[in-house]
C-alpha cells in the first residue's frame, strides 16, 4: 500500500466505524428508527452533549481537564430558561460574563501553575450554587427562538444530524485547521517549545478556555431548546459524558492529541449506546450494569479495529 493514513485520519476511522456498527445494531433491533423522525429522536439529545464534548476537548487539548462541565452547562441552562427569555440583554451579558470567567480560569491556572482538576472541581460547586440560586426549583422556559432552532425540520436530514455535522465542521476548522487551533494543540504537545517560539502561553490558554466556555454555553442553550425548561441539576452527567466522548472519539488526556470530528462521533456513540440498551429490554436490576457493559463493548470494538488498523499499517 502506498497510501498512508495519517495519524489524524486513524484517530477518526476507529470511532466512525464503531458508530456505524452500533447504528446498524440499533436499526436491526428497531427498524422504525430508520426514518427522518426516528433518527431525530435517536440523536437530538446528542447535540448538546456534542457541544459539551467539544468544550471539554478544548480544555483537554491544553493538557487540562474540566470537572465543572456538567454544572456549568446546568447553570447556562438555568440562565437561558430565565434571563435570556425574560431579559435578553441581561441574559446575553451573563453568558458573556460566564465565557470571560472561563478565560480567566485559564489565566489563573496558568499563572499560578495550578492543577486544573482542582480549580474546576471548586468551580463546579460555584456553578452549581449559582444555578440553585437562580432556579431553586425547576422551571423557567426556553426562549422561543431557541425552541424553534432545536425543533426546526430541515429538508433531507433531521435537525440532529445537520447540527452534528455543522458542529463537527466548525470545530474542525477552528481546532484542526486554523493557526489558533495549531497553537492550542501545540501547547498540549510541547508547551516549552511553543513558549520558546515567542508565543504568549497565557493568552493562548485563556483563548482555549474562553472557546471552551463558548461551546459549553451553546450546549446549555441547545439543551434548554430541547427540554423547554431547566433545572439546577439538569446536566450534571455532562462532565463524565464529555470526557468519555473525547476519549471514545480518539482523543487523549495529555499531549494535545484531539479530534473534533471524533469527539462529535463519540458523543453520538454514547447517546446511541443508551438507546441500544433500552431496545434490548433488560431486567431493571441490570439496566444500569448494562450501560457499563455497552461502554466496555464499544471500547473493545475500538481496540479490535485499532489492532486491525495497526496490522494494516505494518504491511
Amino acid at each position: 500500500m502506498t497510501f498512508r493514513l495519517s495519524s489524524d485520519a486513524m484517530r477518526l476511522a476507529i470511532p466512525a466505524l464503531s458508530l456505524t456498527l452500533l447504528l446498524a445494531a440499533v436499526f436491526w433491533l428497531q427498524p422504525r428508527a430508520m426514518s427522518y423522525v426516528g433518527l431525530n429522536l435517536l440523536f437530538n439529545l446528542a447535540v448538546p452533549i456534542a457541544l459539551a464534548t467539544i468544550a471539554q476537548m478544548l480544555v483537554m487539548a491544553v493538557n487540562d481537564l474540566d470537572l465543572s462541565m456538567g454544572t456549568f452547562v446546568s447553570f447556562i441552562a438555568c440562565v437561558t430558561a430565565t434571563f435570556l427569555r425574560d431579559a435578553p440583554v441581561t441574559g446575553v451579558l451573563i453568558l458573556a460574563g460566564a465565557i470571560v470567567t472561563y478565560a480567566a480560569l485559564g489565566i489563573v491556572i496558568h499563572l499560578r501553575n495550578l492543577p486544573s482538576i482542582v480549580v474546576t472541581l471548586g468551580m463546579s460547586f460555584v456553578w452549581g450554587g449559582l444555578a440553585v440560586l437562580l432556579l431553586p426549583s425547576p422551571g423557567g422556559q426556553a426562549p422561543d427562538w431557541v425552541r424553534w432552532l432545536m425543533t426546526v425540520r430541515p429538508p433531507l436530514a433531521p435537525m440532529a444530524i445537520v447540527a452534528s455535522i455543522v458542529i463537527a465542521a466548525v470545530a474542525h476548522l477552528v481546532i484542526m485547521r486554523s493557526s489558533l487551533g495549531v497553537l492550542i494543540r501545540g501547547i498540549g504537545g510541547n508547551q516549552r517549545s511553543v513558549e520558546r517560539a515567542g508565543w504568549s502561553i497565557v493568552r493562548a490558554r485563556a483563548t482555549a478556555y474562553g472557546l471552551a466556555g463558548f461551546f459549553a454555553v451553546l450546549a446549555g442553550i441547545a439543551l434548554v431548546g430541547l427540554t423547554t425548561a431547566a433545572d439546577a441539576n439538569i446536566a450534571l452527567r455532562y462532565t463524565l459524558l464529555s470526557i468519555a466522548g473525547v476519549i471514545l472519539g480518539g482523543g487523549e488526556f495529555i499531549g494535545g492529541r484531539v479530534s473534533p470530528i471524533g469527539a462529535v462521533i463519540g458523543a453520538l456513540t454514547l447517546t446511541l449506546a443508551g438507546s441500544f440498551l433500552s431496545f434490548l429490554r433488560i431486567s431493571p436490576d441490570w439496566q444500569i450494569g448494562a450501560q457499563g457493559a455497552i461502554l466496555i463493548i464499544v471500547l473493545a470494538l475500538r481496540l479490535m479495529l485499532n489492532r486491525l488498523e495497526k496490522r494494516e499499517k505494518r504491511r
Partner: protein
Amino acid sequence: ETSAKKIALSNNYAGNSWRQAMLTSWGKVTGEAVKTGVVAAADAFTTAENQATEQAAQIQNMILQGYDAIVLNAASPTALNGAVKEACDAGITVVSFDGIVTEPCAWRIAVDFKEMGRSQVEYLSKKLPDGGNLLEIRGLAGVFVDDEISAGIHEGVKQFPQFKIVGSVHGDWAQDVAQKAVAGILPSLPDIVGVVTQGGDGYGAAQAIAATDRKMPIIVMGNREDELKWWKQQKDAKGYETMSVSIAPGVSTLAFWVAQQILDGKEVKKDLVVPFLRIDQDNLETNLANTQAGGVANVEYTQEDAVKVIESAK
C-alpha cells in the same frame, strides 16, 4: 379493552429503597395484569443516573418502540417537557406520578407535598403547644420535591409561630448523608424540640442525635422500616411519640391503572391527587408488621382503586 396495549414505566432513579419498593410493586401488579391479559406488556425502564437528559432520551426511545402509554416518574417537572410533548404528538398517553411533569398534555398523579410539610409542623404544635426550636432536614437542592416540602414546612412555621427553625441541612434523602449533616451542625445548635424531615432521613438524624448527650427531640419519620423499628423501640422503652409520613411507593401501580383506564377510553381529569401515607402512634405496630424488613411502608393499588380515584376527581 386494552389487551393489545403496551405500557412502559420510565423511572429516573433506582438508588434507594423507596424506588426499589416502587419497582417491586410495579413488577408484581403489572406482572399479574399482563398474565391475565389486561395489557400486552408493561416494561420498566430505569436510567443509570438521576438525570433529566438521560430520561428524556429514554422517553424518546419509548416513542420509537411504539408503546401506547408511558408511566413516568420524572427527574424534573419541566426538563422533560420537550420529550413528553413529542410523545403526546406521537399519540402516546403519558401519566406522571410522584415526580410529575408540567407539560399540559400529560396526566399528573400528584401528592400534595406542601401539605405533607405543613402537616408535620401542625402535628408538632399539638404535641408541643409551647413550641420551640426546630431542625429542618431537606432533600436534594434544586429538586422540585425538596422545594415543595420545605415551602410547606415554612408555611407551617408561619402558621404556628411558637416554632422557630434554627438550623437547616441538606440530607439528600439518604440516611448517611443526613446523619453526617446533622452531626456537623448539632454541636452549634441550641436545644431543639423537633426535627422536621422529608423522608429517608429520620433514622440518620436519630443516630446523629443519639451520639450526643442531647435529649431526643420529636423526629418526624418517613415510613422507612428502620425508622419505624427505631420508633417502636423508643416507644416501648420510654413512650416516645412521633408520626411518620411519606408517599407510598405503590403509587406507581395506581399510575399504571390510570394509564390503563385512559387507554380504555375513559374520561380522566388531567390532575389527580393521591393522599400521602401517614403512620401514627396507634397504627405503628400494624404498619410495621406489614412492612418488609429494610423496606418502606407501602400500599399497592388495584384497578378498582384507580376507578375510585378517577371518579372522585370528577
